């Protein structure tokens, strides 16, 4: 994008609309995954109730671990349900990342960029690395 195009894009940029879409889409994705999981459970077991546990792990380990264990059709529903939970948990995190980018590139407000970074650092550590 050239300088004029960038400036036009910045002027018309609606951060609130983007944040709203992230929150809404994150919720829809989460509900979608969980619904697919429950449907698979109903197909395989004939009922929607299930027993599942989360071991102590961060969100990244929890997603990767579940992908490794998903070979069996009986565990497939559990994968979808847990992906739904992960999508739910990651939605506010994605919103924070987008806010940071907004404050850096659109608003060019270094103080608000710093505030958002201070929030993101501990969240990133505990969600993905801790």
């Amino acid at each position: 994008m050239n300088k004029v195009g960038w400036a036009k894009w910045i002027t018309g940029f609606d951060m609130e609309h983007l944040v709203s879409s992230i929150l809404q889409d994150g919720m829809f994705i989460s509900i979608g995954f969980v619904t697919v999981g429950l449907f698979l459970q109903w197909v395989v077991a004939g009922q929607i109730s299930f027993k599942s546990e989360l071991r102590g792990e961060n969100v990244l380990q929890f997603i990767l671990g579940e992908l490794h264990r998903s070979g069996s059709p009986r565990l497939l529903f559990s994968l979808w349900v847990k992906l739904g939970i992960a999508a739910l948990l990651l939605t506010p995190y994605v919103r924070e990342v987008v806010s940071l980018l907004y404050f850096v590139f659109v608003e060019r407000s270094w103080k608000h960029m710093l505030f958002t970074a201070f929030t993101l650092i501990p969240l990133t550590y505990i969600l993905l690395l801790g």
Partner: protein
Amino acid sequence: MSVEVLFFISMIAGLVGAMSGMGGGVILIPVLTSYGVDIKRAIPLSIISMIVISNSAASGYVRRHIPNLKASAFLEIFAVFGSLLGASITVASGRRPLFFLCGGIILSSCVILWKQRKEVWKPVIHQDTFSGWLDLEGSYYDHGEKKTIAYRGQRASLGGPLMFGAGLVSGWLGVGGSALAVLIHDLVMGLPPKVSLTTSNLIIGVMALAGVSVYLEAGLIDPTLVVPVILGAPLGAFIGAKLFMSLTNRVVRFVFLTVLMVLGIEMIVHGVRGI
């Protein structure tokens, strides 16, 4: 507890949460514990419901430009650190004194809000330097009052550190943190009730995420219980957010006051019962 019952309870929690700016803990924790769910599993579930309600209700509020994104960027720092600390000490500590303390704070705030119930919100005239530096101001179109309301916030230097306390209570008890956040925005920072509630609704998502990640590491999250909350709470939150838009600031404050009173009494009862 059956999936259907928890789905229905989560829907009510979503409705109340969206209309009061809080999570669903005020409804979920007492119901779950009365069904025999361990409090240490009920608290993480209540915190997860905060994320669900925040995602569902805040998406509508943000689209209408009501919450203040710059205020939330500043206040979230304190709330996240408070929530991390609160959740970290949950497993090891007793909560009884904190239930009494938080219940006491909430009920005293009820008295203040009750005394102010006939007063309409007054805009801040003289903004302090720090709040001005933070760009703590904005405007939104109020559908209830059918006019644009411009506002400025104040005392951000006090509101920020107090949000640490709100995060601590949220991570520790699973209830009360979002109520405290609304009170801080409203009574300390002078934001209009609708901005206070919706900004709180946005912040609680991130605040709760910090707490949940600690409970996830501790293996205290039960997916069996989370699923009905993910499916039920957004429905209630969607209806609650629709209702919220058409209310005036005075009615919003009344709804908040009623839920606050129930929450305050509930916390004192928790303290007496020791859970």
